[in-house]
């Protein structure tokens, strides 16, 4: 990722160069490309992945958050501005950018209409098979269906799309993007677009980068999303003075099955049923209240906890009763007839695991109402299990090994109200824009609310596309 001018082939004749270059191939990139093209600019989109894996982490997403003051077929009730704002406030601890956040909320309202106009289909709540959601709209078939529709629309209006095109570096001089270094196969060449929009996300797939932030612990992380989020463009911008935003040392982590592939496992790798059992580390010890979080936020709570476990691995231990409650999982749990054999299968000290379970079982107290499993709790146990503390006594026993699964990072570039990349001196690069997860930490520097990443991609992708087109035509 170093500057290496001697490697550059001569710049191409400008006739073949697009006016607007879109870097990335996910939601933000497609929305940027479509809106820039619709505004009259010639547009080329460079997607690093091959066609079959195009679309960044949009491929793994399903719903998007949108403001709607009234009822809509896409959500179970209204979601007014003030509530959207309050949700963001709570999730981020009030760290959101004061200019961009109102833009996001306002423009989120017409996101469904804009997408439908671009060929994207939603799944109405009347289908009866969706998780209840008042704040988000679900895409029919999920993110990849949306990608298919947007790629088709973009191609239909004349956006040039190139796959397996990796942007290695940008060159910014005196507040202007001068050139973009693009590798396609063996060939590396410099492009000189009149404007570029960086929509290529964070660096969570880059193991070196992860190690730099997390040290040895990074080896125990699993990347839930695209293997192409390597952060070359983010790194290049930051090295050349772009103002960083967010925290490079933090990431949105979710508890995933430790047997998942290193990248791209997506939604199915989540481990979800911690409240049905107990969680131990590789030494067989508990360290958190498994009954403390029963809402969907528990996935992220456990992701953070696992990052602090020895070896970044934990084991959810269930008995036969707990397994009956467990939702379908990608991999079957590791199971055994007894605790000792289970410990052996997990390479945990059997004495330690037996002791932990025996202490836990001894501390279990029934609920006041016998038929209310949520009311069962422990007494005198540290840490306690405050809810759903049913005894682990019914063989066979089973375990899900878990690791922290990185979803996205909280590290990006600061942008202005036109989504131009801002430099350390407060000025903006006049012809370099950013949209999507690469600038999402302007709004969501910590925490998360479901469906927000998609909305950020769409709203700021559209805005960046319009601004870039205005720039090259003005």
């Amino acid at each position, binding site marked *: 990722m170093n500057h290496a001018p001697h490697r550059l082939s001569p710049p191409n004749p400008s006739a073949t160069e697009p006016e607007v270059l879109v870097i990335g191939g996910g939601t933000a990139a497609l929305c940027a490309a479509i809106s820039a093209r619709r505004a009259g600019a010639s547009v080329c989109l460079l997607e690093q992945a*091959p066609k*079959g*894996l195009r679309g960044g982490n949009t*491929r*793994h997403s*399903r719903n998007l958050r949108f403001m709607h003051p009234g009822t809509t077929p896409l959500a179970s009730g209204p979601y007014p501005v003030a509530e959207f704002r309050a949700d963001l406030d709570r999730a981020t601890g009030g760290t959101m950018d004061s200019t961009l956040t109102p833009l996001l909320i306002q423009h989120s309202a017409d996101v469904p209409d804009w997408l439908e106009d671009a060929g994207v*289909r939603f*799944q109405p709540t009347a*289908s009866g*098979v*969706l998780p209840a959601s008042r704040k988000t709209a*679900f895409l*029919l*078939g*999920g*993110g*990849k*269906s949306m990608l*298919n529709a947007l790629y*088709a629309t973009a191609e239909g209006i004349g956006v040039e799309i190139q796959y397996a095109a990796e942007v290695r570096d940008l060159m910014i001089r005196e507040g202007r993007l001068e050139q973009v270094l693009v590798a396609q196969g063996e060939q590396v060449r410099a492009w000189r677009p009149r404007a570029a929009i960086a929509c290529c996300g964070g660096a969570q797939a880059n193991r070196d980068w992860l190690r730099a932030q997390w040290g040895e612990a990074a080896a125990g992380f699993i990347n839930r999303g695209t293997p192409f989020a390597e952060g070359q463009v983010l790194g290049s911008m930051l090295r050349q003075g772009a103002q960083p935003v967010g925290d490079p040392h933090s990431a949105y982590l979710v508890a995933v099955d430790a047997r998942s*592939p290193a990248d*791209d496992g*997506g*939604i*199915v790798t989540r481990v979800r049923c911690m409240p049905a059992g107990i969680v131990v580390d590789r030494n067989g010890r508990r360290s958190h209240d498994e009954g403390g979080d029963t809402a969907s936020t528990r996935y992220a709570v456990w992701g953070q906890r696992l990052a602090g476990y020895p070896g970044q691995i934990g084991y959810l231990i269930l008995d036969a009763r707990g397994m009956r409650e467990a*939702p*379908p*999982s*990608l991999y079957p749990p590791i199971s055994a007839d007894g605790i000792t054999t289970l410990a052996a299968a997990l390479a945990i000290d059997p004495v330690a695991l037996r002791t932990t379970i025996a202490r836990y079982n001894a501390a279990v107290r029934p609920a006041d109402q016998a038929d209310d499993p949520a009311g069962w709790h422990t007494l005198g146990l540290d840490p306690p299990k405050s809810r759903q503390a049913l005894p682990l006594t019914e063989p066979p026993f089973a375990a899900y090994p878990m690791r922290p699964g990185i979803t996205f990072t909280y590290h990006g570039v600061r942008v202005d109200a036109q989504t131009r990349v801002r430099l350390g001196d407060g000025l903006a690069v006049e012809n370099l824009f950013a949209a999507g997860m690469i600038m999402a930490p302007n709004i969501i520097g910590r925490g998360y609310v479901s469906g927000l990443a998609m909305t950020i991609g769409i709203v700021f992708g559209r805005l960046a596309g319009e601004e870039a087109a205005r720039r090259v035509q003005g």
Partner: protein
Amino acid sequence: MSRDKTLAEARRVLGICNACGYCNGFCDLFEAAKHRPRLADADLAHLANLCHACRNCLYACQYAPPHPFGVNVPRGLARMRQQSYVDGAWPRPLAALLEHSLLAALLVGLGAVGLLVGLVLMSVPAEVLFARQTGAGAFYRILPWSGMLAIGVVPLAWSGLAIGIGLRRAWRATRTAAAPVTLRALGMAVRDVLLLRNLSGGGPGCNDLDERLSHKRRWLHQTMVLGLLSSFAATVVATYYDHILGWEAPYPLLSVPVVLGTLGGLGMSLGIAGLLWLKWRGDRDPTAPEARHADYALLVLLLSVALTGLALLAWRDTAAMGLLLTVHLGGVLAFFLLLPYSKLVHAGYRFIALLIEAMERNERRDG
């Protein structure tokens, strides 16, 4: 592919679907799979027959190849469906006809035509067979009414029995929940068949050819089915005219049997030609070769029946009528013989799957 591998792959793939669920807006399959999380052999057979092979879930799948999970639901379930037809074949040895559907259609088709042509050549004097025959009873001078009846009734009775035994097996194996058969459930299943609701991708249509959505396959299939039903109705009306009213075929162009038969032949030809075109042009990733072959075998057989029927109508007043009639009836005979050992059995299996689904949905809603 071996039976074990087919089942294992269907189980693996649907296991991933059950942990994901993004596709549950396309059709009934994904919710149905969620309610059968064990994915036992009977569950897989039921789910495979519930799947209408619409392909949307492959195009939408975040785990489709080249992803290492390699999830391809339409292909896995096409194989599984084909396996369920083989498992239900009666008598067992004739399952080979399903496993080699193209060869079976060719041999049985040529055999049936050859047999009839041979019989006619032997029994009908050449001056009758190759002469222009018109007026009441013209067809029977080539093939007596009793012969035609035998061509219709005997193979149909056998096929009905064989299909009935297969479907009975399937019904017993896949009806695993205690939900009752109700009129309401039957009505829902019939409606699903008429509208091909599971072939509409939740509204916008299906990936019939490629990434674009369309309702082509849905319309073409129903055009073909209407044509087939209309042709069958023509035969029934003609039998009634002939046997009850004593009016001997051939009938005038504007008579009920000829109009029904003509519309039927045209509908079938049009529908089949369209379906063949889709199959030929469409992306093959979401299909399996054995399922594709079974489709081709049935479509081509049906198309030849329809085209020879139309040809018979067009040239019935010429000297070609005798042979055209014989060839047409040979095609019909082959079709009737192959009914239980062809893709056509999907109609029964799918109806059972839709009915069970409707029963279980009602039970969940009310119970």
